[in-house]
């Protein structure tokens, strides 16, 4: 039995500091921190016998983060990321569970692939790696993948997505939603009408027009969002919108929720912070899909996350090898790293301006994504008897992002040299410390 004590932390940043004792993966005691520390004669005799003590004065204690949208690149592109390196990045970013998207090589459209990814995640043990299954075979959008087999496999796949591609055919999407309802699993849609984005590399707007970059119109996303909301309504199924990026999408989701449609949505940290003015440099690091939009969109997304219309933050962590980014902008592969910087970006864009507090951070980075994906032991209240999936956050630890220092194999962060306002002090997965002060602890 392992015992860990976190001292002087404040759950959700609220109330007086407490000491949190974790025995064998479960929170067993939460007691007020004694002034002067344990050596001054604290009331908790078990505390002084802890195997490990994390001195955490000034920190905020949150439920471990859950990322519904991660690309781990294994199998196929291990030069960019592996389950091991991505798990390390997740642990450093405060995550205790991640959903690994299906657009690997080969595609995760069979239980063979999803079980492989799941087993790798288990072997590494830094974070719960839940493989996402493809909705359609080969992500081709034509035939449903064997969703039932994947759901019944050892990976117990609960989330299905062709992310990177849209399930564009309305009949296939309808069937997928209906079939998913029967399995009680969730379809996550990459909303992009492909005919409207042929050749597109940047948000369609004045910036792209001036820079001579082919435009990705908002309507390409919004038309699929409203279509899928209506299909989900008719199918009686749930649908989740990946990486919402436009103000119009926010309004459509608001409308759909008002109608009682079972729709949820995520926003990425980069769509909360960055806009298309970044493209002036033509640096491929800023190419992402959906593209960075205009400042009015980032404002709308922040407001929607604050008021709950957008449910959660998901990183869309997308590592790429250097040669896939250091090239012509239009040739650069879309995607950005996100796991290790997500908290800092959310702190800067949402907490610092007062849009949400730390309980709000817990909601959008842990509680809601765990609820949406049905993870019973994640996103739980910080209470005695709960599984100790926890993140200790230092809200005043400003740090400067250096891609080369991140745990990912790739270094394609859009925040290079940017100073972010908050950092993860420690991450605990079922009571085991997976990361403390940036150092990852392999099992």
């Amino acid at each position, binding site marked *: 039995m392992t015992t860990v004590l976190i001292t002087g932390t404040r759950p959700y940043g609220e109330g007086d500091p407490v000491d949190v004792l974790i025995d064998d993966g479960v929170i067993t005691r939460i007691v007020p921190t004694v002034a002067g520390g344990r050596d001054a004669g604290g009331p908790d005799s078990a505390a002084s016998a802890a195997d490990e003590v994390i001195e955490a004065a000034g920190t905020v204690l949150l439920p471990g983060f859950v990322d519904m949208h991660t690309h781990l690149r294994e199998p196929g592109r291990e030069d960019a990321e592996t389950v091991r390196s991505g798990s390390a990045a997740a642990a450093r970013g405060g995550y205790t569970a991640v959903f690994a998207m299906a657009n690997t090589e080969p595609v995760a459209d069979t239980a063979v692939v999803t079980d492989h990814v799941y087993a790798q995640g288990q072997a590494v043990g830094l974070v719960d790696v839940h493989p996402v299954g493809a909705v359609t075979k080969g992500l081709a959008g034509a035939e449903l993948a064997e969703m039932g087999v994947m759901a019944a496999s050892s990976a117990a796949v609960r989330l299905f997505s062709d992310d990177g591609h849209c399930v564009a055919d309305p009949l296939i999407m309808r069937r997928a939603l209906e079939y998913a309802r029967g399995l009680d699993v969730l379809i996550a849609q990459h909303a992009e009408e492909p005919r409207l984005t042929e050749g597109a590399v940047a948000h369609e707007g*004045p910036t792209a027009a001036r820079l001579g970059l082919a435009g990705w119109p908002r309507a390409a996303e919004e038309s699929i969002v409203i279509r899928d909301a209506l299909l989900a309504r008719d199918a009686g199924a749930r649908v989740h919108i990946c990486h919402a990026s436009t103000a119009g999408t926010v309004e459509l989701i608001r409308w759909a929720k008002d109608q009682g449609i079972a729709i949820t949505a995520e926003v990425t940290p980069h769509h909360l912070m960055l806009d298309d003015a970044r493209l002036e*440099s033509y640096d491929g690091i800023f190419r992402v899909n959906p593209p960075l939009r205009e400042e009015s969109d980032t404002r709308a997304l922040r407001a929607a996350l604050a008021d709950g219309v957008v449910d959660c933050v998901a990183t869309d962590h997308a590592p790429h090898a250097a040669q896939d980014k250091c090239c012509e902008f*239009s040739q650069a592969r879309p995607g950005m790293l996100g796991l290790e910087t997500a908290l800092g970006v959310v702190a800067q864009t949402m907490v610092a301006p007062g849009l949400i507090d730390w309980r709000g951070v817990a909601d959008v980075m842990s509680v809601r994504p765990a609820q949406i994906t049905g993870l019973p032991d994640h996103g739980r209240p910080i209470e005695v008897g709960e599984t100790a999936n926890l993140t200790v956050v230092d809200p005043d630890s400003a740090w400067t992002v250096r891609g080369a220092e991140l745990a990912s194999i790739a270094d394609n962060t859009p925040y290079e040299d940017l100073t972010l306002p908050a950092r993860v002090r420690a991450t605990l997965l079922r009571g085991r410390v997976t990361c403390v002060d940036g150092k990852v602890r392999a099992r």
Partner: protein
Amino acid sequence: MKHLLSIGDLTPDSAVDLLDEADRFKAALLGREVRKLPTLRGRTVMTVFFENSTRTRASFEVAGKWMSADVINVSAGTSSVSKGESLRDTAATLHAIGADALIVRHPASGAPRQVARWTAEMAQDGVAPSVINAGDGMHEHPTQALLDALTLRDRLGGIEGRRVGIVGDILHSRVARSNALLLTMLGADVVLIAPPTLMPLGADGWGVTVAHDLDSELPGLDAVMMLRVQAERMRGGFFPSPREYSIRYGLSETRRRMLPEHAVILHPGPMLRGMEIGYSVADSPQAAPLQQVANGVHVRMAVLFRLLVGGQVDA
């Protein structure tokens, strides 16, 4: 300024200075049997074209040679990625060989700017080549705009206060972008005329007028710049048919007669006669495509001179 990557890199004064310099080169060569100046002796200029071109490449080559530069043409084929070598590695190689100037044409918007950034990062001794944008994707073609402006100045006696119509495939045209920037900078009144499908989103924020009816604009124009319809960049139907395009936006003989007598007709070439421009219109006294080509050499001489030996283009 070390590079010429965009018209936006220029100020009105530096743009006029380049046009004046081009005029001086033109005068210096006028009537000479042997057109050779010693200006760039010992300098190495490389044209690096990732996209097919006849007139722009030849124009830069002649400009360099008339100034005694060593001009080397690098055939980079199509996309560097499809070739297997990255654009960055190609830039590194050319930098290591020791070019003083890289004249880059590339199908990807922004590629010359990236070459300029990468070679600056690579320069151990701080000496990186000047990079000239010879046309990048749908972005810009600054020397084309300069030669167009020189031609307009020759024909009209000045640019300020003149009304210039740019007609056709604005969306895909780097020539239109550079010209809209330069001509408005020089005080012209620019009107972009195209069907809405070929008009870039936000063009009305460029300090220009946006119009869709060519006939109503023609009588008020001092110059009309016809653009090539870039079928190779088009996906999906931007207009119903070449015939309809020609009927609505082609500069026919009838339309030529709607222009004021003094108006100049420009085309960056290659011209699609019969569609964008009538057969006889292209050869009419108002049409200036050959003068544009001739001015192109003098403008490129001015740009090479200013970047390599004549101080900075921009103050």
